[in-house]
């Protein structure tokens, strides 16, 4: 069966023609290409499903016989240096490629509908296919340079997709922020790669690990330098997986279209950092300091993500912080050395979070028809509520995803998160306490999201009270005039795009804005403003189309059953020894598992049940608090009473309010970290730039100009002196004669 490995190159290359063709077509024959439109979606889905079938087949092979396959061909040869390209198929690769392709196909399916009325439909598909290509290239790559190449390509795809709606100023800022932040990580990654090359002289993973082990074993390298290199490598993972100091880009990245948030910023690309750490696990394991650092960064991120998610108004942003904290769990697991748990959580979280994001996309899609295309409105949870009645299927899917993420037993994330929590008790009690506490908080904020969105009454009429005056900017239709026509066709039943002249005047009266000193009026053939007055409150959101619901249902299935790959099924073999035959461990047996040195330890049902009960009860506690706080007051009298009794406790309540205020401020200001970065780094760089610009212009250029000007004056002076006037010569002559006489 090994012949299948020979064809494994198709994993990374087969989807490449689609983005290339679309790109060339859009550039050279835009009209013809755009006419084909939907025709382009089919080949991309088709090719991706080929890859999916292939990678599923590969991973089945991997389960049956763990076998690492590597194929290399040389890329460039220089006499003392050769770069190679290749692919490496091992359990990690096969798991991730299955993950990427399944989520990728579902998201492609979903976005066919979600983006169908967007002008950039084809561009979107080109970017998406390019992303899946480079992501698959990343997971199959066999050396560090290749990893770096695809790492950057993935980052660029993310940049392009975040800035997909480039007419939105927020989106254009967000994509730049994402790219630059990721570049900081790449900086570390590149330096780490170079350092490791310097130490070992190889990029190939397996050679590298071998040489590295030998060197460490024989104590031939400077330990500090090795640690530094490992840390730099890890910093690439920090940026990509949105871990603590470099997490700032992820919430902003939610400006991209929602399918992208599901695919790139929840399921796959952010997992690239985890992948990198997992890939280099044999290297990191040798250096205990780095392992502790990974765990520490993980736990900080878990905590930070959770606290920041507590009071977000934007549904996607809240999910983004949740992604961040869940990735923190994964990182924590890696840092603790439980490789299996980390990958397990990576998989389960990817499916659950993709489900949640697709669900939120469906919600946004329904809300946009009513509230307009502004992320401030259509993603604002304050304006939602009571959607259960209107979009029941999405609600069910979203609820299941929420339950999974909270860690409620039958669902996927329960199994993996429970494993991580268990392992954390073995690792360090402090980390474990924080991890358990945040598990509770996770349940709390996820249910907050759920309740605000689906429970209670529809709140869209509040949007006019939402205090933000300048939000009218964003109701500018995305693609100018043509786009609005499309919208018109689309939502014919809400003939909202017109408004009377009076309002228009007042609108433009207010909106003169300042560009660089000159006040300009917005010219308005370009703009269509959707102004919705309160009469329209009676229009309600509608359920999305079937093409959007179908991928969600598939993901629900995944969420329900993907946990099965990590659940140990007890079986006895002939000798009566208990064996746990869970698929994941079978895949990862040869890999390292530090915490469970003794295999008997792993299947201890009693311990498992107690731990599970503990973590589930924490989750339920979180859910209970959430429903107590966010269940609309009028929905149940009981709660109301309870609330009253709570309110009576005078001074304590003030204290409580203060705490809530602190948390809210912390969360809504994003933990003040963004502000800190803005002041310290961006401000610092701006000042430095101004200073250097000044230096360049005034001093370096000034010297040259000064030389020029002085030479001009000297020339003029000499001209004046040597102008041939006899009187001046006489004057000079007398002058010198006088001096000579005096001396």
């Amino acid at each position: 069966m090994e012949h299948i490995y020979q064809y494994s190159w198709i994993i990374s290359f087969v989807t490449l023609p689609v983005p290339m063709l679309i790109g060339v077509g859009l550039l050279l024959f835009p009209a013809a290409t755009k006419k084909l439109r939907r025709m382009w979606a089919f080949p991309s889905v088709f090719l991706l499903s080929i890859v999916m079938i292939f990678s599923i087949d590969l991973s089945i092979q991997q389960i049956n016989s763990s076998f690492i396959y590597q194929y290399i061909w040389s890329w460039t040869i220089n006499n003392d240096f050769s770069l190679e390209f290749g692919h490496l198929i091992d359990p990690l690769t096969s798991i991730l490629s299955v993950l990427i392709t399944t989520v990728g196909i579902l998201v492609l399916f979903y976005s066919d509908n979600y983006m169908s009325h967007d002008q950039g439909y084809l561009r979107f598909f080109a970017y998406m296919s390019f992303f899946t290509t480079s992501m698959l290239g990343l997971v199959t790559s066999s050396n560090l340079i290749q990893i770096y190449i695809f790492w950057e390509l993935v980052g660029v795809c993310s940049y392009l997709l975040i800035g997909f709606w480039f007419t939105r100023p927020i989106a254009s800022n967000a994509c730049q922020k994402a790219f630059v932040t990721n570049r900081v990580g790449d900086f570390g990654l590149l330096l780490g790669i170079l350092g490791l090359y310097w130490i070992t002289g190889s990029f190939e993973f397996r050679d590298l690990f071998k040489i590295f082990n030998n060197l460490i074993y024989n104590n031939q390298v400077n330990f500090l330098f090795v640690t530094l290199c490992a840390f730099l490598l890890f910093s690439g993972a920090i940026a990509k997986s949105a871990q603590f100091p470099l997490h700032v880009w992820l919430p902003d990245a939610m400006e991209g279209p929602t399918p992208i948030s599901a695919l790139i910023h929840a399921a796959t690309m952010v997992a690239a950092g985890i992948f990198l750490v997992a890939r280099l696990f044999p290297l990191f394991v040798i250096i205990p300091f780095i392992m502790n650092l990974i765990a520490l960064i993980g736990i900080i991120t878990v905590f930070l993500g959770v606290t920041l998610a507590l009071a977000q108004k934007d549904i996607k942003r809240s999910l983004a912080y949740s992604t961040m904290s869940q990735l923190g769990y994964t990182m924590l697991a890696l840092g603790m050395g439980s490789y299996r748990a980390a990958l397990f959580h990576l998989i389960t979280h990817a499916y659950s979070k993709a489900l949640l994001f697709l669900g939120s996309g469906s919600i946004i899609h329904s809300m946009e028809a009513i509230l307009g295309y502004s992320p401030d409105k259509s993603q604002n949870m304050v304006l939602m509520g009571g959607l259960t009645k209107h979009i029941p299927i999405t609600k069910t899917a979203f609820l299941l995803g929420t339950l999974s993420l909270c860690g409620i037993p039958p669902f996927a994330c329960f199994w993996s998160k429970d494993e991580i929590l268990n392992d954390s008790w073995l690792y360090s009690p402090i980390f474990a306490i924080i991890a358990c506490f945040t598990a509770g908080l996770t349940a709390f904020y996820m249910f907050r999201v759920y309740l605000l969105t689906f429970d209670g009454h529809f709140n869209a009429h509040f949007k006019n009270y939402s205090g933000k005056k300048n939000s009218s900017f964003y109701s500018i239709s995305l693609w100018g005039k043509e786009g609005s026509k499309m919208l018109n066709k689309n939502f014919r039943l809400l003939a909202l795009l017109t408004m009377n002249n009076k309002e228009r005047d007042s609108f433009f009266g207010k909106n003169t804005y300042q560009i660089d000193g000159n006040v300009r009026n917005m010219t308005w053939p370009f703009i269509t403003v959707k102004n919705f007055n309160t009469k329209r409150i009676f229009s309600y959101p509608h359920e999305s189309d079937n093409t959007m619901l179908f991928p969600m249902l598939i993901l629900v299935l995944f969420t329900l059953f993907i946990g099965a790959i990590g659940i140990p099924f007890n079986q006895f073999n002939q000798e009566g020894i208990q064996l746990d035959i869970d698929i994941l461990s079978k895949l990862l047996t040869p890999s390292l598992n530090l915490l469970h040195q003794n295999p008997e330890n792993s299947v201890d049902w009693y311990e498992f049940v107690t731990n599970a009960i503990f973590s589930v009860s924490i989750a339920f506690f979180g859910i209970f608090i959430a429903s107590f706080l966010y269940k609309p007051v009028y929905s149940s009298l009981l709660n109301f009473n309870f609330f009253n009794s709570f309110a009576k406790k005078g001074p304590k309540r003030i204290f409580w309010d203060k705490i809530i205020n602190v948390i809210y401020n912390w969360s809504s200001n994003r933990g003040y970290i963004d502000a800190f970065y803005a002041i310290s780094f961006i401000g610092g760089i701006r000042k430095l730039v101004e200073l250097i610009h000044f230096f360049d212009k005034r001093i370096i250029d000034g010297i040259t100009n000064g030389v020029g000007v002085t030479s001009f004056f000297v020339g003029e002076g000499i001209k004046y002196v040597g102008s041939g006037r006899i009187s001046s010569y006489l004057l000079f002559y007398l002058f010198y004669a006088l001096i000579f006489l005096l001396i």
Partner: protein
Amino acid sequence: MNSFPWLTIFVVLPISAGSLIFLFPHRGNKVIKWYTIFICAFELLLMNYVFSYYFQLDDPLIQLTEDYKWIQFFDFYWRLGIDGFSLGPILLTGFITTLATLAARPITRDSRLFHFLMLAMYSGQIGLFSSQDLLLFFIMWELELIPVYLLLSMWGGKKRLYSATKFILYTAGGSVFLLMGALGIALYGSNEPRFHFETSANQSYPVALEIFFYIGFLIAFAVKSPIIPLHTWLPDTHGEAHYSTCMLLAGILLKMGAYGLVRINMELLSHAHSIFSPWLIIVGVMQIIYAASTSPGQRNLKKRIAYSSVSHMGFIIIGICSISDMGLNGAILQIISHGFIGAALFFLAGTGYDRIRRVYLDEMGGMATSMPKIFTTFSILSLASLALPGMSGFFAELIVFFGIITGQKYLLMSKILITFVMAVGMILTPIYLLSMLRQMFYGYKLFNAPNSSFFDSGPRELFVSISILLPVIGIGIYPDFVFSLSVDRVEAILSNYFYR
């Protein structure tokens, strides 16, 4: 081998064909434009043909040599010849000049003179890259300046006279040192001047004298390259010149400095080079950071791109001074790659300027919806410029990094420090390039210009940008295209340093 003087033809053909332009009847500009483009393309094709048939890639020696005595009493020879190292720049010259003439089609004023100057520049550049004689090198170097000066001062922007004067003063000032160095080398140790590269390469000088020569040449090339702090002519010049001139300036003219550094400073004065290279590396590293952090402060779009090319020149300097196989290869690759990318960026900036008539970035915005093609090509090329893998810039910079790491000359600590600071430039580059993109294309800002819709790029502009894009991506995916030209020669150059 063959005795047919191909190189002489390459050098003489453009300028002689160009002087025929003045004999043309007054029939409008179209004939002249087509004629010029034809000449350029013909020359490019002819060069490709000749090099593919008569040039052996695996031979590190000078090939296609020609040696004629030109001026009798002076021992001045017309010596031409190319090797693997000069092949790349020559082909680049042909390519970029052809595209630049294509890009210059909108020019109508004095188009005879303009096109003649373009062709004269073509001759000068090819002559420079293929000359094997110090004095010929110097003459070609000077020949190059005059067309640039005229092109700048006649077809430039508002401050064209200022920048043209600045340019000519700077470069002529540099040329003085070049001449001094050339004469010094030629006259040392013998009564009759010897300008031939090969004879002077084998000569050895007293250290002090060698250092003196080295400084002289360095100043000349540092002005052209440019190396800080002699770079201030470049933003002004690029900011004012017409974009076809800018393409030539950024694509080829800057590379002449780097070429000269390798050809003369490295080959002829190897001892001084190994003394100076640590300092030059420090300068190069500073240049990367300095220019990359000056660039975001520029409001003028073209100046911002100009500073970005100053910053990228830093990699070339580091590569040259790393004195390692890979570093020099990386420098050559960066010469070629930046030739493409810089030229393309200036071209696109110029076409954008033709449409909106604004040079200041903070006045622009929201152009993406009205000109998607320019947007696409511009963003791809900016990504190429910030060293995105898969494009040529990435590979060049990567190889330069490896050159530093593997070079045997430097100590561990200094290596770490150098790579670290160089890599900081990697963070700064996207900041200015992406914010440039953002300010130009992203957003919704609308002009109150009377015609608020612009034409997207037509087939000609699209052709130019795509034909630059293809080699950029091609080299990025398969860098051996360039390496195969220069690897053997690089080894030959470096062998001086190791067997000494």
